[in-house]
């Protein structure tokens, strides 16, 4: 396969009713700039949005995506200086009096925010908050508004909307809150909906549901949508056109198919090349973009991307290039945009899907970690004032796994599935509630405190948020030296310098504090600290999920390189299935405190046997518009059941598509009997009563990586 290129017929959604040019733009933004004091956050952004069109805005954190959108809404803090123009149906929004803006907000142009918990007032009922949006813009009675709120909740797919309208935001799950936010945004039938990272805080299966609701909301209202996200996969599946931002500027704008297939700006090409993809395994190394985004307070005089650009020429440093029309409707801000065929071709990676399952067989090395029947339950208490126990959270409820030396096991699952609890239980190195944990062949229940201290040196950890995992008041030297000092390993200074060089930092950085580093550099410091005691097993808790895409790739490559050089074993916990796919040899999929499927990465991804794994994989968006739009969607219904009250029998049955398709006689088993992990073939097992052998799965459940595209 040569990949998806422009020559191919562009499949996907039928053109939206109002393409650019048809009927004039609904929203037209030109030369929009935002300053916060000395910081120039947005520097001359312009785009237009036709009725019914979806424009994706992508870029890394700090690129000015959200600020530009908030400026259009007039919702920036008052110290922001906004210039330029934004016209809604020709009426100017920038600098308009508050009264006019308020009348337009919510009715002409509305917004869905990123974090639906903090975006809803905690003390009012959800229904009342939606009704408030209805009442602001019309002479509606209180009763009618409440009725409309229930209708809207029903529209966005909240079950039992009448009862749910009386709930408070904290009683909703993340996905339900985001649905309620969407209900609020469409309450007055707006012409433009701005979605600011609408699914970033959500799990993949919930993300898929919410994107579906957004699609529906857009269809119902016919509104134009501005979709701001850092997830290239989400844009690929939903947007008509895409705007790439870097350092507060537009660097590329075009139709999704064009930009993904033929990026003309090296930054866009770099972004596409640095994303780990579900449809590509570890065989294809990620290409990180070097360096870090410039600080908006001190921009270089030339092209802001020039210092990180592999294709830069001296002219790039002279002045910032203006967006240039490369093809009709496709412009890029690069001096070399018109040179044919010089951008790296991301499609070279995208196409190469490895055959299901294969990779080297498991090494016959010693086992470094063995977990059997691990259980962790804790009391669920309610109420801050009248605290009382209302149940037991079965966070981890019988987990078995093992890791051999030099091997990487990826533990994946959605939030609340118990993966982090599992990891913490392992790291405690003490007696567990039930089951057995043994590290380096030692049962942790029988360790003396001296032995435990010694064993801690062999098992180290790297956490998710590198800023939170480094004590802000200590220098990098003190941070990396802390394990050495604790374990009395002699003079720390030379070792610290060597460790810093090993993770790609400068030894001279040792005197600085974590706040002077970028996210990727901080994570490197955390890795250096974890390696200080020369551990055999490193536990990685979401090691790259707090990092920007272009930086992520560098850290992933470093982790792989260190593993190969030092012979480390990794236990990698992550929710990003593509990252796990890239690093892990074996994968364990967790669902509600239990392992749903475990086995060699190629097998689990290539031929998933458990319906949950299948749904999970189908929900991950792929940053390739043609492919993403041709996939068959398996949407799970409803929310993840509470771990305090898991369903009887199989814990997945309430959302299981396979269960729905079963005959009643066969269902009985799912209702009553909890499935154990059953080996299907060599090193691949699934906890499903009706899991088929992978060979059979290929034909019955076409949602595997190979068969993501419908024939």
């Amino acid at each position, binding site marked *: 396969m040569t990949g998806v290129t422009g020559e191919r017929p562009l499949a996907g959604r039928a053109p939206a009713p109002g393409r650019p040019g048809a009927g004039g733009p609904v929203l037209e933004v030109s030369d929009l700039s935002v300053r916060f004091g000395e910081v120039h956050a947005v520097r001359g952004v312009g785009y237009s949005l036709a009725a019914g069109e979806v424009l994706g805005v992508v870029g890394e954190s700090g690129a000015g995506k959200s600020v530009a959108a908030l400026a259009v809404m007039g919702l920036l*803090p008052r110290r922001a200086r906004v210039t330029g123009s934004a016209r809604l149906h020709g009426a100017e929004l920038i600098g308009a009096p508050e009264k006019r803006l308020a009348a337009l*907000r919510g009715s002409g142009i509305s*917004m869905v925010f990123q974090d639906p918990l903090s*975006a809803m*007032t905690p003390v009012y009922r959800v229904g009342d908050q939606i009704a408030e949006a209805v009442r602001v813009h019309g002479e509606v009675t209180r009763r009618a508004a409440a009725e409309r709120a229930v209708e809207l909740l029903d529209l966005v797919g909240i079950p039992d909307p009448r009862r749910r309208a009386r709930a408070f935001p904290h*009683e909703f799950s993340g996905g339900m809150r985001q649905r309620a936010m969407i209900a609020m945004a469409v309450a007055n039938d707006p012409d433009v909906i701005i979605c600011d990272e609408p699914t970033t805080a959500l799990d993949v299966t919930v993300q898929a549901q919410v994107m579906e609701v957004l699609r529906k909301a857009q269809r119902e209202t016919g509104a134009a949508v501005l979709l701001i996200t850092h997830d290239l996969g989400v844009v690929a599946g939903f947007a008509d056109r895409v705007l790439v931002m870097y350092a507060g500027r537009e660097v590329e704008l075009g139709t999704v198919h064009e930009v993904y297939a033929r990026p003309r700006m090296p930054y866009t090409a770099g972004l596409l090349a640095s994303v780990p993809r579900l449809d590509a395994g570890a065989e294809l190394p990620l290409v990180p973009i070097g360096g870090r985004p410039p600080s908006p307070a001190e921009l270089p005089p030339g092209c802001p991307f020039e210092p990180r650009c592999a294709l830069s020429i001296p002219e790039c440093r002279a002045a910032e290039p203006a967006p240039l029309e490369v093809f009709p409707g496709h412009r890029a801000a690069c001096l070399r945009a018109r040179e044919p065929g010089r951008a790296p071709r991301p499609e070279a990676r995208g196409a190469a899907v490895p055959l299901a399952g294969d990779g080297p067989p498991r090494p016959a090395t010693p086992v470094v970690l063995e977990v059997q029947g691990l259980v962790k339950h804790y009391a669920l208490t309610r*109420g*801050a004032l009248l605290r009382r126990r209302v149940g037991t959270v079965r966070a981890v409820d019988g987990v078995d796994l093992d890791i051999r030396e030099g091997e990487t096991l990826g533990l994946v699952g959605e939030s609340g599935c118990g993966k982090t609890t599992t990891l913490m239980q392992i790291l405690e190195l003490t007696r567990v509630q039930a089951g057995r944990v043994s590290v380096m062949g030692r049962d942790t229940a029988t360790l003396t405190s001296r032995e435990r201290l010694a064993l801690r040196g062999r098992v180290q950890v790297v956490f998710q948020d590198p800023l939170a995992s480094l004590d802000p008041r200590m220098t990098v030297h003190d941070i990396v030296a802390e394990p050495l000092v604790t374990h009395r390993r002699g003079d720390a200074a030379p070792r610290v310098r060597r460790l810093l060089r090993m993770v790609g930092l400068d030894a001279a950085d040792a005197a600085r504090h974590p706040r002077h580093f970028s996210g990727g550099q901080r994570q490197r410091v955390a890795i250096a600290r974890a390696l200080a005691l020369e551990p055999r097993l490193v536990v990685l808790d979401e090691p790259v999920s707090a990092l920007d895409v272009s930086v992520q790739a560098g850290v992933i490559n470093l982790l792989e390189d260190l593993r190969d050089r030092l012979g480390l074993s990794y236990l990698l916990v992550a929710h990003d299935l593509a990252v796990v796919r890239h690093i892990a040899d074996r994968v364990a999929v967790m669902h509600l405190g239990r392992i749903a499927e475990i086995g060699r990465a190629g097998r689990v991804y290539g031929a998933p046997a458990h319906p949950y794994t299948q749904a999970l994989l189908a929900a991950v968006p792929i940053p390739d518009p043609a492919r993403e739009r041709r996939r068959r969607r398996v949407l799970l219904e409803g929310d993840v059941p509470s771990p305090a009250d898991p369903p009887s029998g199989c814990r997945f049955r309430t959302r299981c598509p396979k269960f729905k398709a079963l005959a009643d006689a066969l269902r009985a088993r799912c209702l009553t009997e909890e499935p154990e992990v059953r080996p299907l073939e060599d090193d691949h097992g699934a906890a499903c009563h009706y899991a088929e052998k992978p060979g059979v799965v290929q034909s019955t459940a076409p949602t595997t990586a190979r068969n993501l595209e419908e024939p």
Partner: protein
Amino acid sequence: MAGFLLRRTANCILLITVATSLAYLLAATALDPRSNYEGRNPRPPAAVVEAQLSRLNLNDRAPLSERYLTWAGGVLRGDFGRTWNGDRVGADLARRAGVTLRLVLLGVVLGSVAGVLAGAAAAVGQYGWFDRLSTACAFLVLAIPTVVLAHMLVIGAVWLNDLLGVQVFLVSGEATPGLADGVGAGLLDRAKHLVLPTISLALGQIAVYSRYQRNMMLDVLDADFVRTAMAKGLRRRTALVRHALRTSLIPAVTYFAFTFGSLLVGATITESVFGWHGMGEKLIASIRSNDVNTVAAISCFAALAVMLASLASDVLHAVLDPRVRVG
């Protein structure tokens, strides 16, 4: 639920019991009722003093544990013992508690409402003239001890009354004794007496609450949910009042429990300066007269009041914040 309430009540009772017992033990050790008799002229015979002290359970020659048990037994039957000259302790405490509670309640309500409003207004117009003015006033008020403030008010009132030649403010007692013509005149007289003590007590509360509320309000001013409210189409002012103020009231309510203790001290000072016959005045008098049992009774009252205040703040918290309600 019932079990929880029971446990909580039990803990409250335990705390009050231990606090009152500690106060009794301390008072019985540190105070010296015998000196009251020995200072008398003519000095009563030693045996009479001894018998009197023993009868009142105040004899420092009896073992402390014995005195404590006798006292505790009495308290359990609702009898707080007798003063050093033989009166019942409980006699006028109830009336005095009413006087103090009236004063404190007025101070709390006025102080918290005015303080919260001032703080919210200051935060909304951060760095504006009202913010600067209220901040400067709050700093000044917080730097003036209640004793000084009360005396300053008295001095100011006397000066003003002299200047106008009319008794606008009255600075001694709760009401003018012997005034009996008409309800209207009585009320006016009471109001004239009430103004200054209330100000003296409330001013500090207003300053504290306005600072606290200003900070809490600033925290939610840029909150996402305020932005959402504006994105719905609410004007900034409406969004701030309906969403920001309402949410930032929650921490202010929990703060109330912490300020209550200082309010009682403030009431003691205010009563003393303005000659109100409340609990605080009695406290000072009973310590000066080595009145062990009265001191213990007042400390029991104070502990109970603080406990109730914290309970009230918890209940208000639950009313205002759906997240802490048991659901």
